[in-house]
């Protein structure tokens, strides 16, 4: 099996039953696996809510390590929309020219450095660095903050030893408290200051609400972006023709981004809490139990995607749900897409080929299912393009 290949462990269950089952800290989850069921459940935000106990819709559940509600993520309509309207324009800033220029400079420097080395471990030396530096643009804070964020490792709540690391979560919470206190004393044009000035229903956001938005911004785009970047490098290492084709026909880059995101599905699934006894794909689910919307499975549904297990970089119609679907679609999607766009364009420009030296997969266990989401580590050699 090629190292960049990400197989679909859900196919059999998706075809035969349409659901999968897993336990998670004695709070079981019924996973919706088919594209249509995933979309239907995501749309039905009254029966399948996000505004449950904070941390409960995340899998593995963060109930035991988090009391703060992530906003707008763990809020249901209509309040969800009110919060979303406050933060949405900020999360569209990645489309601005200055942002793009800064992102190009950052990623260009990372690639230049990678080209100068004999071996690069992509997860920690490339993707984590890239994600952390790019996040300074999203927060509009000094570049130097990225050093602190890099030191936290690839997941803000999880460590190598344990999936849910309370002491690690506290490092993040303490950091955020300090940053908010600093921004109160020194208002500027950063994300904290924007939130401190923002109003919802004619009232200022509380500190708790601001922390909820900030935690979401740190947690939601961490391992997801790191996996998307790492998996893209692995893919182009094993498919140099794809990179050459994008160089010859740059119009395909947008299609390639969406297709890689579909194929990788960096976030496997997201939970919801059930408010009334109902059904998911003819399977009974009880009130106060959990379901999940399995984006990764939906994105391999052969009734929607031809050749679902292949990366077709020119896939023109690609109704993937890798950024979620409906009301709660990913707030950071614009930032994530810009990162991939800039990364691919610089790879096209500067990199001729990439050799994988060794790789260790990062495998998630979801009940009976084992799914590769990326790599724990992957060492590669970047080779400069001949035209340089």
């Amino acid at each position, binding site marked *: 099996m090629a190292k960049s290949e990400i197989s679909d462990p859900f196919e059999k269950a998706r075809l035969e039953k349409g659901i999968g089952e897993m336990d998670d800290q004695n709070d079981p989850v019924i996973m919706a696996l088919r594209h*249509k069921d995933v979309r239907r459940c995501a749309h039905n935000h009254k029966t399948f809510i996000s505004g449950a106990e904070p941390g409960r819709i995340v899998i593995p559940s963060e109930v035991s390590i988090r009391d703060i509600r992530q906003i707008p993520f763990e809020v249901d309509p209509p309040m969800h929309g009110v919060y979303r309207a406050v933060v949405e324009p900020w999360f569209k800033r990645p489309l601005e020219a200055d942002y793009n220029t800064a992102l190009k400079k950052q990623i260009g420097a990372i690639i230049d450095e990678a080209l100068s080395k004999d071996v690069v471990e992509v997860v920690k030396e490339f993707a984590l660095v890239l994600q952390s530096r790019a996040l300074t643009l999203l927060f509009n804070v000094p570049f130097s903050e990225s050093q602190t964020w890099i030191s936290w490792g690839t997941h803000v709540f999880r460590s190598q030893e344990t999936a849910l690391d309370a002491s690690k979560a506290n490092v993040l919470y303490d950091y955020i408290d300090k940053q908010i206190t600093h921004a109160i004393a020194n208002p500027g044009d950063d994300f904290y200051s924007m939130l401190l000035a923002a109003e919802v229903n004619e009232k200022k956001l509380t500190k708790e609400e601001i922390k909820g938005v900030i935690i979401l911004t740190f947690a939601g785009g961490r391992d997801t972006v790191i996996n998307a970047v790492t998996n893209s490098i692995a893919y182009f290492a094993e498919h140099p023709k794809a990179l050459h084709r994008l160089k010859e026909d740059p119009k395909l880059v947008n*299609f390639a981004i*969406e297709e890689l995101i579909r194929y990788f599905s960096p976030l496997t699934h997201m939970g919801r809490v059930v408010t009334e006894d109902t059904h998911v794909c003819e399977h009974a689910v009880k009130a106060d139990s959990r379901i999940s919307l399995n984006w990764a499975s939906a994105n391999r549904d052969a009734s*929607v995607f031809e050749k679902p297990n292949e990366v077709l970089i020119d896939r023109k*119609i690609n*109704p993937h749900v890798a*950024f979620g679907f*409906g009301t709660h679609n990913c707030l950071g999607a*614009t930032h994530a897409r810009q990162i991939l766009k800039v990364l691919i364009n610089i790879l096209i420009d500067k990199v001729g080929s990439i050799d994988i030296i060794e790789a260790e997969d990062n495998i998630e266990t979801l009940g009976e299912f084992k799914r590769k989401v990326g790599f724990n580590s992957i060492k590669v050699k970047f080779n400069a393009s001949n035209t340089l």
Partner: protein
Amino acid sequence: MTKITFITQDNESIIVEGNSGNVMELAVQNKIKGIEGNCGGVCSCATCHVHVQPEDWDRVGAPSTLESDMLEFDDHVSEYSRLCCQINVDDTIDGIVLKVAN
């Protein structure tokens, strides 16, 4: 040049012109409020939802199965809904009026 009129949720009417690409791209270039085109036109994000005027429906044509699937769970769907990234800008749609759904 093909002329298209967008009517936004604020009832603002904007006439734009183009001769290539798709209608979503044209809307984004002209900063039409309510058309985002987040996915760049691959029928994934449903942020380019428009309602076609009934008299223009035959010229624009019905959505593909995949496109109607994406529209099925949209709060503002009507029998004249389309995702405008899937409509090409060409002579056949000259003069149509599209109401922005969001």
